């Protein structure tokens, strides 16, 4: 694998680390199976692309993308807590609706950003070779900041209330926590992070495309599962770290699998490789436990 493709994989991995942190909040902390991601990731991308193309600051575009994502997550949560629509179904409804909304936002199936300023361009300047280092560098800084902010939030009174809401809602209510509000806030936070991922994605890929969201949730979930399989822990700052590493490792695996000529895999095999990888990560803990049992049973 060349250095360029390695750095490319790292770059995408870091972007999906943001998505994975969002998925961690919905699936693991709130216990809310949420597929909104497939719509909120391209929503973030669409909002950012159209704003940058319209001459706005790329950072402002990222902020607006996060707000849009937060709104999407909030609507999913609202459908669930206020209208009692099943969690999965509520998120599918929002995901489908977002497809139309994204087309409306972009005004076309795709928006090109070639030559437009991005959050990376001030550091790249005129030397386009620098992009290989600058883009992963800036993304790493954003991901680290997001991880640390999340850690701090989940150690706060409000963050602890959110964790209790996901783990034991009845107990949370008995302690005076409005579980509905915690779910609304958490889902907004989750999808804001995912939309930020989308906003940064379009800036590294040179444009937004209506189909860019397909499979986002699977990749995010894959990262979470790989992370918790490799570094099992109950401590929250370790879990967020594992999630970030899971996302990066996932992209590196994929890049490795697709670039190794002797395996004969090609770019179109991406989804198959993903499925196999997630499957492996899911059975690994069971296999490990079985192995340990066998070893214990027959002390050799």
């Amino acid at each position, binding site marked *: 694998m060349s250095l360029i493709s390695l750095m490319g994989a790292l770059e995408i991995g870091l972007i999906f680390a943001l998505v994975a942190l969002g998925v961690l909040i919905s699936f693991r902390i709130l216990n809310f199976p949420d597929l909104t991601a497939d719509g909120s990731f391209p929503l973030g991308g669409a909002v950012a692309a159209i704003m940058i193309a319209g001459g706005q600051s790329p950072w402002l575009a990222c902020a607006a993308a996060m707000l849009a994502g937060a709104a999407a997550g909030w609507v999913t949560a609202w459908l669930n807590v206020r209208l009692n629509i099943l969690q999965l179904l509520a998120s599918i409804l929002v995901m489908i609706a977002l497809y139309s909304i994204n087309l409306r936002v972009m005004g076309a199936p795709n928006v090109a950003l070639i030559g437009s300023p991005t959050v990376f361009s001030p550091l790249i300047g005129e030397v386009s070779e620098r992009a290989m280092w600058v883009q992963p560098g800036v993304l790493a800084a954003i991901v680290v900041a997001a991880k640390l902010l999340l850690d701090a*939030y989940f*150690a*706060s*009174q*409000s*963050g*602890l*209330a959110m*964790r*209790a809401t996901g*783990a*034991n809602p*009845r*107990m*949370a*209510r*008995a*302690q*005076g*926590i*409005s*579980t509905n509000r915690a779910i609304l806030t958490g889902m907004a936070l989750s999808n804001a992070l995912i939309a930020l991922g989308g906003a940064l994605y379009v800036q590294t890929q040179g444009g937004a495309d209506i189909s860019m969201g397909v499979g986002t949730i699977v990749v995010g979930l894959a990262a979470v599962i790989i992370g918790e399989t490799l570094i099992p822990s*109950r401590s929250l700052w370790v879990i967020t770290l594992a999630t970030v590493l899971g996302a990066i490792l996932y992209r590196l695996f994929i890049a490795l699998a697709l670039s190794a000529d002797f395996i004969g895999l090609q770019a179109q095999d991406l989804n198959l490789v993903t499925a196999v990888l997630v499957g492996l990560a899911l059975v690994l803990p069971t296999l490990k436990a079985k192995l340990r049992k066998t070893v214990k049973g027959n002390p050799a």
Partner: protein
Amino acid sequence: MMHAKGLLKTFNPGTPIENRVLRGLDLHIETGQFVTVIGSNGAGKSTFLNAISGDLLVDSGSLHLDGQDVTRQNAWQRAGLVARVFQDPMAGTCEALTIEENLALAWQRGERRGLGRAVKAELRELFREKLSILKLGLENRLTDRIGLLSGGQRQAVSLLMASLKPSRMLLLDEHTAALDPKTAAFVLELTDQVVAEGKLTTLMVTHSMRQALDHGDRTVMLHQGRVVLDVSGEERARMDVPDLLAMFERTRGEAITDDALLLG
């Protein structure tokens, strides 16, 4: 002070499995009183407790806590007034959180939760001090997950959590039913201690007539969603389990067939 008047609650109304659980329940509890509640299965004990905590909203009737009308408030809105220990040790605590995080949740019961750190150093000191009262060595395990604790330990922590902040009403929902006899005795002793220290207005549901008479200062019996027996003071002090049984049978004009009540 708690004042419940004409509480009505029907599950699945208008269907073949309609169940009228509360049928005009009246009960007044003075501030500082410790009331034990008995009754056979389906008498409405748990429903009554859930109605006070706000887990269930009653169909009609009114409920006042310290003069405040809470009839239409849901559980999290009245949490500042009501503290609770559940029957299931798993229900009252958050398994995935640490002991200190669980206590921190209870420390802010019914209060606004902001972005400040949930577990601060001075709070940790207070938790350590409170936990040492339990004599379970938990004061040295603040950062252990609560899921690592036994059922009895968790129930003791639940009790501590319920008494961490002042409440107008402490609800104990058969909180020793899931424990072995020795642990149950320990938790009950702790209950008496906590209630006496805080002079807490308490409602304890129990399945055991023995417990109902040995603890607290007033005993009420529920039957078919109503209070059918209410004893306190001298009369109660002279009572024993067979007397209670006899009174119950006389009141209802029928024999008790629920073994659980007799065996408790």
